[in-house]
C-alpha cells in the first residue's frame, strides 16, 4: 500500500473551494455561462481525479484485460455529466433553484469520481489496462469535443437563464452569445486538454511500472 498524498488532497480542496465558495460560484449562478462552465469542468474533471490521486494506492499491479465492459457505465456517467446538465431544461433549473443546484453539484462530483475511478482509483485490480484507459479517455474526449463545438457555434442558447440582461456581463464587455462561446470553448479546448494530459499520464505510469519491475527481474535472472 502506497502512502496517501496530502498535498494533492489540499490541492483538490482548494479547487473545490474555488468552484463552490469563490466569486466564480456566484457568477456561475445565473450570471455568466462561461463561469458556470468553468465551475462545471472543475467539479467533473479536476476535483475528482485529484481526490482519487491523493488516496493511498495499491502498488501498480496486474490489471485484468477484457474486463473493460464493466466500465461502460462509469464512462457513460462521466460523459453524461457533460451532456445531461447542458440540456436546456436542466441547465436552467440548476441556475434558478437552489435544490437543483445542490443536486447538480453533488451529482457532478459523483459522476466525475465514477468516471476517474478506473483511471486513478486506489485499487489496482479496478483499473483499466493502459491501452484501455487511453481508449476510455480518448473517446470521452471526442464526445466532449463534439458537445463543446456544438455549444460554441450553437445559434440557440443552451441555458436561457444566462441570456437575460446582466450588468455584470456588460461590464466585462461580453454579450450573451460571446459568453456562451467562451463556455463552449472552455469545454472544447481546456476540457479536452485534461483528458489528453491523463492519456499521457497513463503512458507515464506504464513507463514507471517498468522501472519498478527492474530489480525484481534482475533477481530472477540470477
Amino acid at each position: 500500500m502506497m502512502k496517501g498524498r496530502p498535498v494533492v488532497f489540499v490541492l483538490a480542496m482548494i479547487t473545490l473551494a474555488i468552484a463552490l465558495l469563490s466569486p466564480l460560484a456566484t457568477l456561475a449562478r445565473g450570471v455568466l455561462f462561461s463561469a458556470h462552465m468553468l465551475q462545471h469542468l472543475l467539479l467533473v474533471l479536476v476535483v475528482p481525479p485529484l481526490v482519487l490521486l491523493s488516496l493511498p494506492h495499491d502498488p501498480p499491479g496486474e490489471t485484468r484485460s477484457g474486463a473493460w465492459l464493466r466500465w461502460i457505465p462509469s464512462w457513460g456517467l462521466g460523459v453524461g455529466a457533460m451532456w445531461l446538465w447542458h440540456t436546456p431544461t436542466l441547465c436552467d433549473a440548476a441556475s434558478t433553484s437552489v435544490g437543483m443546484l445542490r443536486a447538480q453539484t453533488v451529482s457532478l462530483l459523483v459522476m466525475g469520481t465514477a468516471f476517474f475511478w478506473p483511471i486513478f482509483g486506489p485499487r489496482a485490480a479496478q483499473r483499466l489496462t493502459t491501452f484501455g484507459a487511453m481508449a476510455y479517455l480518448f473517446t470521452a474526449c471526442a464526445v466532449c469535443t463534439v458537445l463543446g463545438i456544438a455549444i460554441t457555434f450553437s445559434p440557440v442558447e443552451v441555458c436561457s437563464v444566462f441570456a437575460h440582461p446582466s450588468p455584470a456581463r456588460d461590464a466585462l464587455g461580453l454579450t450573451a452569445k460571446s459568453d456562451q462561446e467562451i463556455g463552449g470553448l472552455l469545454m472544447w479546448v481546456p476540457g479536452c486538454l485534461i483528458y489528453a494530459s491523463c492519456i499521457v499520464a497513463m503512458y507515464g505510469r506504464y513507463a514507471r511500472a517498468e522501472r519498478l519491475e527492474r530489480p525484481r527481474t534482475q533477481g530472477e535472472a540470477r
Partner: protein
Amino acid sequence: MTILESPGGTGASDHVPEEHAGEGSGVFGWIATVDHKRLGILYLLTAFFFFGVGGIEALLIRIQLSHPGLKFIGPDTYNQIFTMHGTTMIFLVVMPTLVGFANYLVPLMIGARDMAFPRLNAMSYWLFPFGGLLLHFSLFTGGAPATGWFSYAPLSETPYSSTMGTDYWALALLVLGIGSVAGAINIIVTVVTLRAPGLTIRRLPLFVWMTFITAFLIILALPVLNAALVMLLVDRQLDAHIFTAHGGGSAILWQHFFWTFGHPEVYIMALPAFGMISEIIPVFSRKPIFGYEFVAGSTLAIAVLSFGVWAHHMFAAGLGHRADLAFAAGSMLIAVPTGVKIFNWIATMWGGSLRFTTAMLFAVGFLLEFVIGGLSGVQFASAPVDWQLTDSYYVVAHFHYVLFGGTAFAVMAGTYYWFPKMTGRLLSERAGRWHFWLTVIGFNLTFFVQHLLGKMGMPRRVYTYPDLPNWGALNGLSTIGSFIMAISVVVFFANIVWSLRRGEKAGDNPWQAWTLEWATTSPPAHDNFDRVPPVRGRRPLWDLDDENKEKPTGAITELKTYDPGVVAMWGFIASEAFFFAILIITYVFFNLDKRAAASHLDLKMTGIFTACLFASSFTLVLSERALAAGKNAAMRTWLALTIVLGGVFIGGQANEYRSLIGSGMGASTSLFATTFFTLTGFHGIHVTLGLIALGVLLGLAVAGDFAKKKHSSAFKALGMYWHFVDVVWVVVFSVVYIRSLT
C-alpha cells in the same frame, strides 16, 4: 514454382536470394507478391516515381516564377500544376514512402516473419498506384484538379470547377484513404500480435512505436477526410448543396472537416520520420537514446493533441476572436512535445562518439531544417501573425521546411541507413556526400528566400507577380535553388542505381546497430529470421555482444496473445465510427429544424424494421454460442435467422426509400433529403456488406467446411462488425427518427 531470375528486371531483383523462389521471382513474382519486404520496396519505388512526377511539377512552377510577368505557363495550367504538385507530394510520395518503410521494417524490427495480414497488405499497396492513376486520369477528362490540395469549397463545387478534375481528385483520395486505413490496421495488428517474446511495448524500437502511433492517427483521421470527400462527390455528382451556400449548405463545414483530418495528417507525415531519426542518431552517436520514455511519451502527446487544434488552419476564416484565442493557445502547446524531442536528440549526440556517415549527415540536417520549420510554425499559432502571413510564401516556406527539411531529410537518412539491409549493398558514401550538400544548398536556397518573399507580401498560388523591388531577384534565387535540388535528386538516383550493382557488400550489420532487423542477413531471407535473438531490453544486439560489459538483466517476458482478427476489427470499427460520426454531425448540423424530417419520416414502420435489426444481433450471439458449444445445426439456424432479420431491415429501408422517392424526394431536393440519404444510405451499404459476409459464413457452414478452430476468429470479428452496425443504427435511429418525431 519455377525460378525465373531476371537481373535488372525490377529494382533490386538481382539480389533476391534463393529463398524468394518459393513465391516466384521476376516481374510476375513482384506483382503477385504478398511478402512485406517486396511490398515495402514496391511502395518505395512507386513513391520515388511519383516523387519524380511531383518534382517536375515543382520545377515547372519555379520556372514560371523565376521572373516577374513570365508567360511560360498560363494561369489555368498553373493552378492545375500546383494542385497536382501538392496532392502528389502528400498522398503519393510522403505517405506511401513512410508506409513503405514501415512495411519493410516493422516486422523485421519486432522479429516477425511478415505482416499480420499479407494479402491485405498487398491490397493496400495496389490501391496506391491505382489511386495515383485515377488522379492523373483527370488529365484526359478536360484537365487536372485546380483547387489546391485542400480543395476548399465552394471553389471545388461544380459551378466553379466544372471539369471532372475535382471528381477524380476526390475519388483518388478516397481510394488512397481506404488503402491507408487498411495498411494502418495491418500495422497495428502486426505490432500487437507478432512481437518476438520479450519485446514488450516498453522495449519497442522508437521507429516501431512512432509508426504504431501514426497508424492510430491514420485510422482515425483518414475516415474524416473520406466522409468529407463522399459528401463533396454527392454535391458534385448529385447536385446537392452540402458545401455550397446557395441551397443552404456551408462552405466552412468543408474547412472544418478537412482540417480535422488535415492537422493529424501533418503528424502522420512527421511522426514516422521522427522515428527514423530516433533510430539513426543513437546508432551513429554510439549511445542509447536519451530519455526513451520522453521521446515515446511526447509522441503520444503530439498524437492526442493533434486532434484538438485543427482550427488554427482557419484563423483567416473568421471563427471569432474567442475561438482564435483558444486555438492559438492550444496550438502553441503542441510545440512543447515536439521541442522535447529535439532536445532528446541533441542530448543523445552530446558526448557521443559521432560518426558522420551520410545517414547521420541527413539526420543532423533534419534537426537544423526541422527546427526552422517548427519555429515558423509556432509563429502561425498566433492569430494576428497568421492573418498577416496566411496564403503568402511564408506558409510555403514553413511547410516545405517541415515536409522537406523535416520528413524528406529523415527519409534520405533512413534510405542511406536501411538500403544495405534491403539490398545487401551500401550506398556510395562519396556520392552520398555530394547528394547531401547539394540537397542542403539547393533546399535552403529555394525555400529560405521564400520567407522573405512572404513577408514582402507575395501571395501563394498566383501564377505570376509584378516587378516589385527584389521580388524578381529572390524568386530567381529560389528557382536556381530548385534546380540544384533537382541535380541532388539525380545524384541520389544515380547512387542507388550504381550501388545496387557495384556497391560495397554490406554484411548483416554494417553500422553495428542494435535493433532486430540487423540480426538477419542483408537482404533478409523470405521468412526474415532463422532464429530471433532473445530480447531482454531495448537493444537486443548489444546484449549479444561479448565485449559489452553491461550484461542484459531484463526478463524475456512472455507476451499476451491476442486474436488478430479481433484486433483488426477493433481498428476497423474505430475507423468506421469516425466516418459515421462525421455523417451524423452533418445531418444534425443541417437538421436542427426538425420539421423536414417530421413531415417525411414514419417512426412506426421504421421502428418495426429497427427491432428486426436489433434482434439480429441477439440471434448472432446465439449462433456464436452454438458454434462454441459445437452445436453446428443450431449455429446454422441462428445464423440463417440473423440473415433473414437483417434482410427484413434492408427490405424495410428499400421500401422507405421507394415511398420517399415516390413522393418526389431526391438526393438534391433539400439538405434534409441529401443528408438523410447519405447517412442512412451508407448505413444500408454497411448492413448489406455485413449480410454478404454472413451469407459467406453460412455457405461455408452448410457446405460443411467450417472447422471450429479455423473460422471462429472470423466469426467473432464478423460478429463485432454486425454489432457495430447495429450500434450505429441506434444512434441514427435516435437522431433521425426519434428526435424529430417526438
